[in-house]
């Protein structure tokens, strides 16, 4: 998994390429935590190029969202395929995250 980070106004967009799983989740976590340290409070994770996520990946998203909300911000998700949506529904995490159809919608939601 690799990630591309870009800034759109005051929103950090992280585009993932590959699966977000136990062996690489720390890269996403550390990148976002570093940006939070630098003042970022709004984050979009774009899953357009991700096939699946495991429980560790889901856990990192939960942890980062919690941290951002504590600071008055949020982490929102975009471009989930049908499998990813199923994972969020199974775990009921669809109730915890704002999930947008596209990156543009996610950006506009802030």
């Amino acid at each position, binding site marked *: 998994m690799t990630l591309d980070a870009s800034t759109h106004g005051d929103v950090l967009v992280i585009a993932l390429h590959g*699966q977000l*799983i*136990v*062996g690489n989740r720390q890269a996403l976590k550390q990148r976002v935590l570093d940006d939070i340290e630098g003042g970022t409070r709004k984050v979009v994770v774009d899953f357009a190029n991700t*096939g*699946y*996520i*495991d*429980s*560790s990946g*889901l*856990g*990192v998203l*939960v*942890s980062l969202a*919690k941290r951002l909300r504590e600071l008055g911000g949020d982490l929102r998700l975009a471009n989930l395929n049908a*499998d990813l949506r*199923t*994972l969020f529904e*199974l*775990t*009921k*995490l669809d*109730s*915890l995250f704002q999930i947008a159809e596209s990156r543009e919608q996610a950006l506009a939601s802030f």
Partner: protein
Amino acid sequence: MMSTAALDFRVPSDLAQIEAIVAQVVHRCRECRFDARLLSLNVPVALTEAIANAMVRGNGEDVAKEVRVRAEVSEVRLVIEVEDEGAGFDLDACCVDPTTPERLEREDGRGLFLMRALMDEVVRVEGAANVVRLTLRRR
């Protein structure tokens, strides 16, 4: 005539090894014409969870300790056994419901839940506490 293909891996407890094993098992299931959804969701996620569990919980991420993954794939079903070098643990005692309001915002605790949700059966192998067997019927 039914054909069965077996895969057998022994790898150190290095989390970076997981994706390659998963890809080979998925490839074999594709050859046996498993449904596309099983190939893109059920098999990769459940197998990733099982191997990660073995490496992290079973072997404590000690790279000197190995995880063995055996997969038998046929036109009827996929059976995977994941073995670590740990003492084993009680699956039922470890499988909590991560969807309850008090657990929903926890970072951990979804691995076994997902394995059971995505496979037809997840059990400890009788007489071998450190071996987990996952079974998925082809559809």
